[in-house]
C-alpha cells in the first residue's frame, strides 16, 4: 500500500467518533492510506462518506464534536493527532495547506487579497514588509493572475470565482508545503475555469513536488488528475489503487456502482418530439439598469434575443456557464422576474407582460424545481402542507389536495405517510423528489428544472433523472432543463440550447450538438469537461428505449 519509501502523509487506522444520534457511531473508521511526495491522491465518495472529515482531521480543523479516537496521522513522520495546538498551528500554512470548495466565501471579504496571502508569511516567517510583498507578487504571477500589482490591492468581491481560487492556491503554496489538501476545489466553478484550475494544481504540484490530497465526488475530475484513488463509503475505505486500475477495473461493487452512475458524454439518439407546441418565446430580453441621476448608467443584458420552443413531451436543455443568462431565461418564462422585451407564448397567450392578477391563472401551467433542495422547501412547514398549498390556492379542497399529494408521493418513490414530516428529516435526493411532487401537484404543462440535480450525488442524480423522464411521459410534460453540466444534459435532453453572455450561440438535437458542435464556445465547453473520454455509464434505460 505504501507507494513510496517515505510518504509525506501517512494515515493509519484512523477512527473518528460521531456524537450520539447519528446513523453510525463513527464518522470514519479504520481509514489507512498514504500520499507520497509529488503524488496526487484523490479521495472519492458521495456525501457522508467521510472524505472531508478525513481531510479536516489531517489539518486539525475538525469541528469540536468530532474526536479522533484511534489511529495516527503522520505528516513527514510526525503524528499530528498527538501534536500540541501550538505545534499544529506552526504546521498549518507552513508544512501543510488547504484549499476549499467555495472560493466565494473562503476569502475574507474585508481584507485585500495581497494582505491575506501575506498573512501566511507574517505568521510563519520573519520576512520584512518589502520581501513579503515581493514574494506575494511573484506568487500571484506564478498563478497566471493578470496584473499582480492591482490584484494585490484588490478585494475578493472584485475577482471572479476562478481568480479567487487561484488566490487561495497562492496562499496555500507560498511556503512550499509538503502537503496540499484540496477539498472539492473546483466543484463550485464553471467547467472551463475548472479545467484551468486543475491544470494549475497539476503544474504547481509537478514543479514543487508537493503531495496532494484531493477530495472530490466527481469521477471526471479523478480521471483528469489522480495518480492514485481512494474510494470511501460510509466512513470506510472500500478500495484503493493506481488511478488507471481503479477507473478501468474497479473491484468493489460500490466503486463499480459509482463509476456506472457517471453519465456518459455520448448522448443517445432521440427521435424528434412531435407533440403540440407548449411554449414559445420570441426576442425575449432581460436588461438590468443601474446608476441614475448622479451616476453614469450601466446596462447589463442578462438575456437578449432569446427564441426557443418546447413541445409537449419534449425536454429542452439550456447549458452555459454562470452569467450566461440561462437562469434568467428560466425565471422570465416562469414570470418570477418580468422580461424587458419580447413574447412568451403559452398556448396562444402571451404572458410576457400580463399583470399579476391576470397572470395568476396561468401560473399553475408553469412550475419550477430549483437547485438547492435544502433551501427551496420551507423548513417550518410539513412536506404535506408545502405540496397542497398550491392546489388549494386554486380552489382545490384540502381533502382532494391531500389525496392527490399522497398519490404523488408514491409516484416520486416516497412513502405517503411522510407527508406529515418536515424537510430536514429527508436527504437531499428525497427533498428534490418532494420538490418535484410539489410542482406536479399543480398539474403543470411546463416544468422548469433549474439545476435541479446539480446538488446531488451521482447515484442519486441518476435516480432523479430517471424519475423526471418517467413523469414526463406520464403527464406529457414539456421540460425546460437548465444545467451547467454537459454530462447531465446529454442524458436527458432531446434538444440543446447553448447560451453565452445572454445570447443563444447554438441549438439543435442533443446528439447533433455533441457530435458536431458548430459554435466555438460549445466546443470549448465540451473540451473542458473533465475526464472527457471517461464515463462508461449506461444511458438511462427509459431514454435508450424511447
Amino acid at each position, binding site marked *: 500500500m505504501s507507494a513510496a519509501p517515505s510518504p509525506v502523509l501517512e494515515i493509519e487506522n484512523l477512527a473518528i467518533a460521531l456524537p450520539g444520534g447519528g446513523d453510525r457511531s463513527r464518522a470514519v473508521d479504520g481509514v489507512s492510506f498514504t500520499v507520497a511526495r509529488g503524488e496526487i491522491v484523490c479521495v472519492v465518495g458521495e456525501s457522508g462518506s467521510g472524505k472531508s472529515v478525513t481531510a479536516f482531521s489531517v489539518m486539525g480543523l475538525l469541528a469540536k464534536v468530532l474526536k479522533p479516537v484511534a489511529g495516527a496521522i503522520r505528516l513527514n513522520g510526525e503524528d499530528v493527532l498527538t501534536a500540541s495546538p501550538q505545534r499544529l498551528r506552526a504546521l498549518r500554512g507552513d508544512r501543510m495547506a488547504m484549499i476549499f470548495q*467555495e472560493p466565494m466565501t473562503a476569502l475574507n471579504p474585508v481584507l485585500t487579497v495581497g494582505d491575506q496571502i501575506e498573512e501566511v508569511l507574517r505568521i510563519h516567517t520573519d520576512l520584512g514588509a518589502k520581501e513579503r510583498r515581493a514574494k506575494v507578487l511573484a506568487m500571484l504571477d506564478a498563478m497566471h493572475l493578470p496584473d499582480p500589482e492591482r490584484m494585490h490591492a484588490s478585494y475578493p468581491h472584485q475577482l471572479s470565482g476562478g481568480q479567487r481560487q487561484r488566490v487561495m492556491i497562492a496562499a496555500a503554496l507560498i511556503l512550499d508545503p509538503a502537503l496540499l489538501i484540496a477539498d472539492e476545489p473546483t466543484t463550485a466553478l464553471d467547467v472551463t475555469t475548472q479545467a484551468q484550475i486543475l491544470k494549475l494544481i497539476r503544474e504547481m504540484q509537478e514543479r514543487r513536488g508537493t503531495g496532494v490530497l484531493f477530495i472530490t465526488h466527481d469521477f471526471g475530475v479523478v480521471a483528469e488528475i489522480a495518480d492514485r484513488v481512494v474510494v470511501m463509503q460510509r466512513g470506510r475505505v472500500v478500495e484503493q489503487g493506481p488511478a488507471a486500475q481503479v477507473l478501468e477495473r474497479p473491484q468493489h461493487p460500490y466503486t463499480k456502482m459509482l463509476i456506472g452512475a457517471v453519465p456518459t458524454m455520448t448522448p443517445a439518439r432521440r427521435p424528434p418530439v412531435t407533440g403540440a407546441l407548449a411554449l414559445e418565446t420570441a426576442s425575449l430580453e432581460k436588461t438590468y439598469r443601474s446608476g441614475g441621476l448622479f451616476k453614469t448608467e450601466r446596462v447589463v443584458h442578462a438575456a437578449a434575443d432569446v427564441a426557443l420552443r418546447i413541445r409537449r413531451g419534449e425536454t429542452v436543455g439550456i447549458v452555459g456557464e454562470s452569467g450566461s443568462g440561462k437562469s434568467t431565461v428560466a425565471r422570465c418564462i416562469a414570470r418570477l422576474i418580468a422580461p424587458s422585451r419580447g413574447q412568451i407564448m403559452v398556448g396562444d397567450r402571451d404572458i410576457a407582460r400580463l399583470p399579476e392578477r391576470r397572470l395568476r391563472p396561468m401560473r399553475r401551467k408553469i412550475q419550477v424545481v430549483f437547485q438547492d433542495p435544502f433551501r427551496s422547501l420551507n423548513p417550518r412547514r410539513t412536506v404535506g402542507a408545502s405540496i397542497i398549498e398550491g392546489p388549494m390556492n386554486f380552489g382545490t379542497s384540502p381533502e382532494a389536495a391531500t389525496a392527490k399529494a399522497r398519490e404523488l408521493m408514491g409516484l416520486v418513490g416516497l412513502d405517503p405517510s411522510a407527508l406529515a414530516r418536515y424537510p430536514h428529516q429527508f436527504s437531499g435526493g428525497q427533498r428534490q423528489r418532494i420538490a418535484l411532487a410539489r410542482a406536479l401537484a399543480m398539474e403543470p404543462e411546463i416544468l422548469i428544472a433549474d439545476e435541479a440535480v446539480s446538488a446531488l450525488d451521482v447515484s442519486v442524480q441518476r435516480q432523479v433523472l430517471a424519475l423526471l423522464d418517467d413523469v414526463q411521459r406520464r403527464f406529457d410534460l414539456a421540460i425546460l432543463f437548465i444545467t451547467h453540466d454537459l454530462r447531465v444534459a446529454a442524458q436527458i435532453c432531446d434538444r440543446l440550447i447553448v447560451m453565452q453572455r445572454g445570447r443563444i450561440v447554438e441549438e439543435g438535437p442533443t446528439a447533433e450538438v455533441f457530435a458536431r458542435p458548430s459554435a466555438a464556445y460549445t466546443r470549448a465547453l465540451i473540451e473542458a469537461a473533465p475526464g472527457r473520454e471517461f464515463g462508461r455509464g449506461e444511458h438511462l434505460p427509459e431514454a435508450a428505449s424511447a
Partner: protein
Amino acid sequence: MAGYILRRLLAAIPVLAIVAVLVFLMLRLTPGDPAAVIAGDNASSEQIAQVRQKLGLDQSLPAQFAIWIGNLLHGNLGESFFFKKSIGELILGRIEPTLSLAAATMLIAVCVAIPLGVVAAYRHGSWLDRIVMGMSVLGFSVPVFVIGYLLIYVFSITLGWFPVQGYQPLSAGLGGYLHRLVLPAVTLSVVYIALIARMTRASVLEVLNEDYIRTARAKGQVERKILFRHALKNAAVPIVTVVGIGIALLIGGVVVTESVFAIPGLGRLTVDAVLARDYPTIQALILMFSGVYVLINLLIDLTYSLFDPRIRH
C-alpha cells in the same frame, strides 16, 4: 465619495424644514402663554399684551414663522424669552458638559462592550457567555436614575470616592473635570454596554461560522488574531449601527442624567426652556438635535464603507 456626502447633506435640508414647521406649529398649538409666564403672576392684561407685542407674538403665525426662518438663514437663532440672552450663546455655554458626558459614556460603553461581546461569542455557551448575557439583560432593565442614585449612594456617600453632583469645566483642570464626569458617564453607559455587547456577540457569533475563519485557521493563525482581525471587522456593520443609534438615543438620555447629577448641559437647558415656555429656545434646541441625528446617520453610513470594501465600491 465627496459627491455622496454632498448629496446626503442636501437630502437633510427637507428633513430639517419639516422638523422646523412641526416644532413651530406644535408649540403654538399647545396651551399656555409665554407672555403671561414672563410678565409674572400679578401682571395686568395690558402688561401681558405689551410683553406679547415686544416678543412679536401678536403677529400672525405665518408672519412669526417667516421672521424666525429669515433669522435662521442669517445664522441668527434668536433671543431667548426667558434667559434674555442670544440662543447661540446659550447653547454654546451648555454644549461642553453635554458633549463631554456623551463622549465619555460612549467611550466607556464601546471599550467595555465590544471585548465582552467578542469573548462571549468565542466562548459561546460557556459560563462566561451566560454571565455576560445575564448582566446585559439586567443592564437593559434597570432605569438610568436607579443606577445613578445607586452609584451615588455606594461611591459618593458610602465610599466618598466621587463627588455627589456637579460639573467642572475642562478649563478648570483635567483632574477635577474627569473626577466629576466618571459617575454620570458610567451610569449612562450601562444600558449601552448591554446593547452593544449583545449586538457584538450575535454578530461575531455569526461571522465565526464563515468559511474565511476556517481559512485563517488553516493558515495557522492564532485565535486572538482570528477574532479581532478577521471576525470583528466583518461583524462591524451591525455594531456600528447600534453604536450610532446609541449616540442618537444618548442625546435624549442626558436629560435625565444631567438632572440626577445636576450637570448644566443641553439636557437641563431643554427642561428649563420647556418649563418656561421659551419658544425660540425650544425651537432652536429641537432643530439642533434633529440636525445632529441627521449628521450621526450620515456618519454611520460613512463608517460602513470604512469597514466593508463592498459598500465602498
